[in-house]
């Protein structure tokens, strides 16, 4: 198989696998039983998922599948956390967080 054919095969199998994982629970909802313990577990998915998506991005720089500690990102994330908590405003959090990242990158660069 040529690389192009292989890559299209990769695309198609990945698409089918991904679609299956994200669709079947939505499609089958109401047709399979929903035990009470499942409700208890699922209640916490949004907070757990959001935290798992925030923390690595706030601590590390992820390049070419290696993670390196990024202090400027961590400082900016802590400042953004305070803004998010106090204002509950997405745009304010985004603006302050990005500005804090640039200032922290510049300051850490100027120091070191």
């Amino acid at each position, binding site marked *: 198989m040529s690389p*192009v054919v292989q*890559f*299209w*095969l*990769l*695309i*198609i199998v*990945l*698409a089918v*696998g*991904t*679609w299956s*994982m*994200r*669709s*079947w*629970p*939505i*499609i*089958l*909802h*109401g047709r399979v039983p929903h035990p*009470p*313990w*499942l409700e*208890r*577990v*699922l*209640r*916490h*998915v*949004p*907070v*757990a*998922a*959001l*935290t*798992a*998506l*925030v*923390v*690595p*991005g706030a*601590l*590390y720089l992820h390049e070419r*599948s290696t993670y390196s500690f990024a202090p400027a*990102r961590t400082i900016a*994330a802590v400042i*953004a*956390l305070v803004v*998010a908590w106090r204002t*509950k*405003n*997405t745009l304010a*959090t*985004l603006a302050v*967080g*990005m500005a804090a990242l*640039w200032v922290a*990158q510049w300051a850490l660069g100027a120091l070191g």
Partner: protein
Amino acid sequence: MRHSVRMSKTRYSFITGAKGVAPILIGVAPFGLVAGAAIRHAGFGLAESTGMSVIVFAGASQIAATTLFGSGAPLWVALCTALIINARMFIYSVSIAPVLAEAPAWARPILGYMLVDQNYAATMTDGRDHDDVDIVWYYVGGGVALWVVWQICSVAGALLGPFIPMSWGLDFAVPLVFLAMLAPAMKDKTAVGVAVVTGVAAAVLVPLLPLQSGLIVAILGGMGFGAWIDRPKAGESR
């Protein structure tokens, strides 16, 4: 703004959903550019870039599969890595299914296709906090906005990827927006506890475990912790 006589509830819900993900689009854009640029770097072109973005539509797995395949990894390794990265979407799907229960059977496969981190997060937090929207249309509005931006940016990335300055750190917008969604979702002590457990697990495990599987382990750990706190106590009726 509430929906008024001038705007149908469907339209209002769709627009509110699109607005719900709007701040995230700033972070999705550079991500799409990276996905497009990765395709070029792996030696493929616009057809592969567009094909992948349209039929897979799952950013992190697209970048991982492309980069691995492009660096000479066997097909099955690239495929398994990408599928493990997407396994969290199964958890999202189980979790969001009751929220989308009003959707008719024919629409559900399409709703599944639209399920990505950003749309899940916005619907489960901001969407459910709006008591005046049709939540299915809110979800569709967010999904369509993300889909359009993703396609445009991955094409742009395939065309001009090598010229994007990565030093701006625009990818940082993604965790920032999730952070902004997380703050109002922490409504009680259990939620804070779940966030702390998941956060520590993610900080330790994500760089440690292969194939980004640390993300899934951290989410499962946080869910398990929350369920354990909420367990029915002895002598208490459920």
